[in-house]
């Protein structure tokens, strides 16, 4: 079980309010990702849930139990740190045994749990090594193993993959997703990586300056960003945001068009000049400078012959257009 409810959770560091009172529900078994710009309070929120940081006010309820004042170890949560935080003087086996030892688990039961976790994480051959004798990916797996053996109500990850190289990051990402499927345990995952957020999450929580801008599935956020911040934050390359005449014509103060919802056309649309063209084979990214609406990010499927300086016309798919009011809130049709 791992249903987590945050009620009016608030955190100040001295005079600075890092998290204004915030409510959030996380369902049992959900994979929740916190995203947001650097310094927005993702780690702080995660640490508040873990109990590593004291709340200024509010309540945290896990499976119906108020754990607001419980010690970190008493909340039934496990955390995987960005730095792995493996105990350098203990072997892999001892690292993984540590939480069980703290819980007073009988040795033979502990042995079985550790062996099973090692099996799952492909660590069986390294059990007698010290962390310093492992690769980054192996260390990451040990950190996860140490979390698994406790059979926690939820796993908390704070940017666990950011110290790994790109290839390893992709495979570890898949491993964690796989693990989530196998264990079906609640996971809360902090990242600033768009791809991680979109691919792994059941539910994304977008944070900005400690406030929740929107909560929803990746596709919800992509299709119906609640406001300009989410619209600009989710999606890569970024959504084109257009103000002025073109927006007013459509009854909004700002309109947003994702790069993939722009097409080159022979007639009509906005005329412009290609400033940059990136050819990835599968996609082509372009930056087009237009008279009417300024610089536009354009994403085309497949290879498109376009070079710097070419004149092109681009037109939006009108049904995919997002409209926002003067407050930046989404306008519904």
């Amino acid at each position, binding site marked *: 079980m791992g249903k987590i409810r945050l009620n009016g959770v608030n955190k100040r560091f001295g005079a600075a309010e890092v998290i204004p009172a915030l409510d959030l529900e996380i369902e049992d078994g959900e994979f929740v990702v916190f995203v947001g710009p650097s310094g927005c309070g993702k780690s702080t929120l995660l640490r508040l849930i873990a109990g590593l940081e004291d709340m200024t006010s509010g309540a945290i309820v896990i499976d119906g139990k108020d754990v607001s004042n419980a010690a970190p*170890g008493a909340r039934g*949560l496990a*955390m995987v*740190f960005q*730095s792995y935080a493996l105990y*350098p*003087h203990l072997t892999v086996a001892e690292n993984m045994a540590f939480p069980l030892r703290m819980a007073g688990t009988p040795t033979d039961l502990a042995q079985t749990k550790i062996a099973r976790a090692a099996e799952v994480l492909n660590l069986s051959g390294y059990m007698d090594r010290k962390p310093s004798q492992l690769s980054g990916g192996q260390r990451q797996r040990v950190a996860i193993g*140490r979390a698994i053996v406790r059979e926690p109500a939820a796993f908390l990850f704070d940017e666990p993959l950011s110290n790994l190289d790109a290839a390893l990051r992709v495979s570890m990402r898949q491993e964690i997703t796989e693990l989530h499927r196998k264990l079906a345990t609640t996971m809360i995952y902090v990242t600033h990586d768009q791809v991680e957020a979109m691919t792994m999450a059941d539910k994304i929580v977008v944070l900005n300056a400690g406030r929740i801008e929107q909560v929803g599935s990746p596709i919800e956020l992509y299709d119906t960003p609640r406001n300009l911040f989410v619209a600009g934050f989710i999606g890569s390359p970024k959504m084109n945001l257009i103000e002025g005449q073109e927006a007013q014509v459509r009854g909004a103060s700002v309109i947003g068009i994702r790069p993939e919802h722009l097409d080159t056309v022979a007639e009509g649309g906005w005329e412009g000049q290609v400033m940059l063209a990136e050819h990835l084979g599968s996609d082509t990214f372009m930056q087009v400078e237009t008279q009417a609406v300024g610089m536009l990010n354009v994403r085309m499927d497949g290879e498109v012959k376009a070079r710097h300086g070419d004149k092109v016309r681009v037109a939006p798919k009108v049904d995919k257009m997002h409209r926002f009011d003067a407050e930046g809130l989404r306008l519904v049709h």
Partner: protein
Amino acid sequence: MTSVRASAAMDRSYKLMLLPASLAVGIFAVAPLVGMFVLSFTDFHLIRGWSGKIGLQNFLRLAGDARFLSSIYVMAALSFFGVVAQVVIGTAIAVGLDRIVKSWRFARGIFVIPFAVPHIAVALIWLSLFTPTLSPITAFFATFGIEVPAMLTSQTGAIAAIVIADTWATTPFVMLIVLAALQGISPDLDEAAAMDGATRIRSFFLITLPLLYPTLLMVALFRFIETLKHFPLIFVMTSGGPGRATQATNYYAYVQTFQSSNVAYGAAIAVFLFIFAGIISFYIARSNARLSDA
């Protein structure tokens, strides 16, 4: 190819540059040691001179010298209790200061003061604190009608007094080293342990302390060797008394050399101390190496 040759040339010029320093070290560090070893095999007496005799007689005499043997007992007590107290208290203060992150700079300043006090001044300060007629501590307790017993009039008390003075003066050294080591331990580890369900105390004993262990061993070794050289505190606070109860080995070497003019015998005691310190250091360093290897 070129880089190898260049580095060889570099090597040579480094060696050349090291020469004056090595010579200085040789003369100032090694020569007195050689002098001490040479003397220890003679029967040189400051007044009577040297009869020409060379041999192991001084070392044989040591084995049967009751004062020498009891000096080892005193030295062992001073070293053991001193090192334990200094390492335990120094570590405790360092851990305390490490938590009070914000004000630690200021606090560190205060705790380091005793370390800056010269040995003789330390001895004089504590001599007056342990002299009932001069001590503010005695005066304070006297206002409640409690008589603080005189420390320097019994062996146990006098050894305790020297250990206390030494601990006061040198704990800051231990504290500084441990503090530096603590700050090299990631705070994530404590948090990980907290998540794993460890109390602060268990987390200290199971995680922090083992990680400090090599540092503590080195600092204990350092302090141990220093305590073998106890002299100013004994000289000023107890004059070796009561009776001879605080004549530690190094002090006894002084007594033999300067009071009794038995320079050769004093040198033999110094040689013993040197070898003793060397053996202990070797074992500690080896076990330390084993620890950090594993």
